[in-house]
């Protein structure tokens, strides 16, 4: 019998929800790291018991946690008694050391002046698809880091910040690498998305990056609506069987690319609002995608107070509301960019968390929903592991 493990990062800790393949009865464990902000947790596809977590605090900064037993116990990587001894017998304790490579460099500040990069936190951890000890981390201020030793140490892939980063400028929500997608058919190809920075791709494992924004239009956010960098990309997604097909939820607009981001086309179609944060793809249907429309950039809650997931079964353009089991009045929560995920069972499960502390799940591709956890702190991220 398959088992589902849902990893939930919240403003005040992490929660792990588990159920069997029926996905009806859920057990909740947590809060793990109580009181800390958990921006993201994600399990390794190569070793499902290996889970990485980004733990942070405005007071005490960034911590990386790692579990090697499916979330039962956690350690900061490299902190076993043996591991704490460096070459000179002095502990290293560098699992939370994120230092920009070489000259720190500058990006545009709010007042238009150059401003040095300042590390604030890790928004997203993307484990390698093949090696449990390798993972990528998306940082604010925007940069991507890589570990090859299970999180004990991190090194920046500095080529990303050579991609016109002097023109990147933080938005109101900061400037972070919040999405990292690994191409399952080409280990050298990685996509990242940066709030108020845009969308970028490397084809050489992270040495060189280029903006992939042709077709994006941001008339209310950028002086040049079709600028190469600066678009506020909220989230991108791909299906592992068709990694050249990308879907994007931008600040405004839902888009798709059929050529690895070389060209984007809008597929917002009949959505009630094309503003939103998450976007994801049904595991069993590469052209079935999900978004959660939000009223506007000024009103971060669902249109008409109705929480609706919208599904397109044609890769965008034609959208249908999915409402069964979701609140259809007086609902004013948001669903953040990393707070939606899908499982890999035959009838695909969809999960998302809200800033109101609910985690909703659907065991039938979105046709109906139930709250599988409620009254949690505001949900920052949701990831799913399908354990077979």
């Amino acid at each position, binding site marked *: 019998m398959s088992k589902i493990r849902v990893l939930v990062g919240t403003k005040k800790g992490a929660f792990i929800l588990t159920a069997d393949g029926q996905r009806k009865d859920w057990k909740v464990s947590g809060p793990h790291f*109580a009181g800390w902000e958990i921006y993201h947790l994600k399990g390794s596809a190569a070793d499902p018991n290996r889970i990485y977590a980004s733990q942070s605090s405005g*007071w*005490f*900064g960034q911590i990386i946690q790692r579990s090697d037993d499916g979330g039962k116990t956690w350690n900061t990587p490299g902190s076993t008694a043996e591991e704490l001894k460096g070459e000179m017998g002095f502990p290293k304790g560098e699992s939370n050391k994120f230092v920009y490579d070489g000259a720190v460099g500058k990006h545009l500040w709010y007042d238009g002046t150059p401003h040095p990069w300042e590390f604030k936190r890790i928004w997203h951890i993307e484990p390698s698809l093949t090696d449990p000890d390798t993972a990528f981390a998306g940082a604010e201020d925007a940069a991507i880091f890589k570990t090859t030793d299970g999180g004990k140490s991190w090194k920046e892939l500095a080529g990303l910040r050579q991609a016109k980063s002097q023109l990147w400028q933080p938005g109101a929500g900061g400037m972070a690498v919040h999405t990292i997608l690994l191409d399952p058919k080409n280990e050298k190809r990685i996509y990242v998305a940066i709030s108020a920075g845009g969308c970028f791709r490397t084809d050489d494992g992270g040495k060189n990056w280029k903006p992939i924004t042709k077709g994006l239009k941001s008339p209310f956010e950028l002086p040049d609506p079709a600028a190469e960098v600066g678009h506020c990309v909220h989230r991108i997604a791909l299906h592992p069987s068709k990694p050249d097909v990308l879907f994007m939820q931008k600040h405004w607009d839902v888009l798709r690319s059929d050529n690895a981001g070389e060209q984007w086309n809008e597929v917002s179609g009949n959505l009630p609002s094309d503003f939103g944060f998450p976007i994801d793809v049904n595991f069993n249907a590469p052209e079935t995608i999900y978004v959660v429309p939000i009223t506007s950039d000024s009103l971060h809650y669902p249109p008409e107070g109705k929480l609706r997931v919208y599904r397109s079964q044609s890769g965008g353009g034609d959208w249908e509301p999915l409402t069964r089991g979701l609140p259809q009045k007086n609902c004013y929560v948001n669903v953040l960019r990393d707070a939606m995920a899908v499982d890999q069972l035959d009838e695909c499960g969809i999960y998302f968390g809200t800033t109101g502390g609910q985690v909703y799940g659907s065991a039938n591709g979105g046709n109906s929903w139930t709250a599988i956890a409620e009254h949690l702190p505001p949900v920052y991220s949701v990831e799913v592991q399908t354990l077979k």
Partner: protein
Amino acid sequence: MIRVVLPFHLRNLARVDGEVELDVAAPVTICAVLDGLENKFPVLCGTIRDHGTLKRRPFVRFFACKEDWSLEAPATPLPEAVTRGEEPFLIVGAMAGG
């Protein structure tokens, strides 16, 4: 023996209860106490002061003998009451306000 009081979250991170005791060679300065603390609990590296610059994190405060030592230079010797273990060196998370 130097006594150090950690804030709740750092006690959890270091997996300690109550005060931490450190052997610190003279002169007992702020920097020497933090060095000793991070040596004993490497998980705290980066949480109190920056990894690279060793500057105190903005919302961490240092108290000793009812005085605020946060703005003192790292090489400043701490009061004798701290060096003798009569008073603890407090590492405190700043008030959130609001």
